[in-house]
């Protein structure tokens, strides 16, 4: 009998029988995350009658982050609806404007831990694989269904194993690794698959870096991502007062569809060119200069303290190029405070950065730095699709915080290894 993959073990444990790959299982997720779309999901409950309440309010996690604070009257109405919904259903896991991005705040609430099953009406819900949890994105309708029934179905996916060895060279980060992997296997290279990271190289990755990598599983089509429950994670959890969890680890003889190997020391800084995340290039392998108008450091991919500190280490004592705007969005209020206390924000502001409130900001094109036709932004976000940040005649380039910071100084895409 072959061993089992991590996802197979988590789902099997929940249903109390050994599931095969491809089998469909009905389970009750531990948490159901929704954000600004909570307002739209609330309207769907009317299908079940006026005044109906959610079945398990303690499982809901509601975070206002996507257009926060409101930029239009409609956003304000949505937020108001959400606050009423939260009060009516007595939802405790709720944060309002300014607390930060859902994928940062949910772990800060202590809800992401090994063995948990978390679904969210946001495609980047796969982020919690960094904590050994099974987490994946669903649509609004399914979130409404879960509020009512508490239950949904999953097909046990095939698994791609990615073996990491070594450690990054100077100027190379987790973002470069995940962009490289996506560039190699393509935007649908992991479609419907679970992506399990293993190998000696993992101990060299912080939880923040693992979140960056797990966050982008969806950009190669992945259903979920997994990092093992090792000392790095355990220490992180304990430091955040989480002491109980159930760790699952895929067996060596489990059925893996493919095994990929990456030596971290061989990775170079990467840039994803418009308009696809898998359109990646080594930073020293394209014709320049690519002139820019804006830099963005933040989002659920790269808005943590280490990301801001890396940018500050490059921008210290420097000024951004006069043709550039540099937007910085700490991913949460707690990160904002830490970056303020340790002087990171001061360095960034002195260099010419604009600090925006914790939230999704311009990543999805709703507000706070959208682009005009013909403009170019280099961003630490996870998507560079056409039209995503304003005009569909604008261009988005994806890179690490270091590459964005280095590029902000020169006004063109620049190699951070030359300024570190």
């Amino acid at each position, binding site marked *: 009998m072959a061993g089992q993959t991590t996802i197979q073990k988590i789902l099997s444990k929940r249903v109390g029988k050994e599931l095969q790959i491809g089998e469909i299982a009905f389970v009750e997720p531990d948490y159901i995350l929704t954000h600004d779309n909570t307002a739209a999901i609330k309207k769907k409950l009317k299908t079940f009658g006026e005044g109906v309440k959610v079945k398990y309010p303690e499982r809901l996690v509601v975070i206002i982050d996507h257009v926060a604070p409101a930029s239009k009257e409609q956003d304000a109405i949505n937020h108001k609806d959400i606050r009423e919904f939260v009060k009516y259903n007595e939802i405790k896991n709720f944060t309002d404007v300014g607390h930060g991005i859902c994928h940062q705040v949910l772990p800060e609430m202590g809800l992401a831990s090994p063995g948990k099953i978390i679904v969210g009406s946001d495609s980047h819900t796969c982020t919690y694989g960094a904590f050994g949890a099974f987490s994946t994105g669903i649509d609004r*309708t399914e979130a409404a269904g879960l509020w009512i029934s508490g239950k949904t179905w999953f097909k046990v996916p095939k698994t791609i194993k990615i073996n990491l060895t070594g450690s990054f060279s100077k100027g190379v980060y987790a973002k470069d690794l995940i962009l490289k992997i996506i560039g190699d296997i393509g*935007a649908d290279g992991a*479609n419907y698959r679970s992506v399990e990271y293993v190998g000696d190289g993992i101990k060299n990755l912080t939880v923040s870096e693992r979140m960056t990598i797990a966050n982008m599983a969806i950009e190669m089509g992945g259903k979920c991502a997994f990092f093992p429950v090792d000392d790095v994670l355990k220490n992180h959890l304990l430091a955040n007062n989480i002491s109980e969890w159930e760790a699952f680890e895929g067996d060596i003889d489990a059925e893996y569809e493919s095994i990929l190997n990456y030596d971290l020391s061989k990775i170079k800084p990467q840039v994803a060119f418009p308009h696809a995340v898998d359109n990646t290039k080594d930073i020293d392998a394209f014709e320049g200069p690519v002139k820019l108008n804006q830099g963005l450091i933040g989002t659920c991919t790269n808005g943590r303290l280490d990301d801001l500190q890396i940018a500050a280490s490059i921008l210290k004592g420097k000024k951004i190029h006069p043709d550039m705007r540099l937007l910085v969005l700490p991913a949460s209020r707690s990160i904002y405070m830490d970056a303020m206390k340790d002087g990171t924000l001061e360095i960034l502001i002195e260099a010419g950065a604009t600090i925006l409130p914790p939230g999704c900001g311009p990543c999805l094109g709703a507000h706070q730095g959208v682009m005009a036709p013909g403009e170019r932004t280099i961003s630490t976000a996870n998507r560079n699709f056409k039209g995503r940040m304003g005009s569909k005649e604008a261009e988005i380039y994806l890179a690490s915080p270091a590459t964005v910071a280095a590029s902000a100084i020169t006004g063109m895409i620049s190699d951070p290894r030359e300024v570190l």
Partner: protein
Amino acid sequence: MAIFYYDQNDINTDLLFPGKYTYGSTEPDFIKEHLFEDLDPEFSKKVQAGDIVVAGSNFGCGSSREHPALGMKLVGVKAVIAKSFSRIFYRSATNQGLLLLELPELVDFYEEGMDVKVDALKGEVEAGGKVFNFPPLPTEMQNIIDDGGLLEHLKKTY
């Protein structure tokens, strides 16, 4: 009955319904108006009930927004035929009761102007005189589609 053919892979949900509208109105007319806006601005003006969409691989990748699937259901798209679909979009379409058919051979065979007929009961699609079969869905998903979407399904069962 018209066929909307997009000879492209990785058509993402931002092209099918731009993010800037995602937190706007949830009224059907608003969703219909912006459907496919950055892929084909003519789509929302021309599409009619019974029409079919044909596209390449990884259709619907990107965000979990359900407006593309919901919008196609609202305007009466009969089926989307693609080489493959992204996972969240596939799930979302099922939740809306929209039929998706993964038929790479058909998409390779398809040429602009060909007639396409879908017979969901028989599990058959005819394109340019050639018949392509599709396997039945898992029961769990078929039940949701038969009931007209997830919420209607849950109304009966929860």
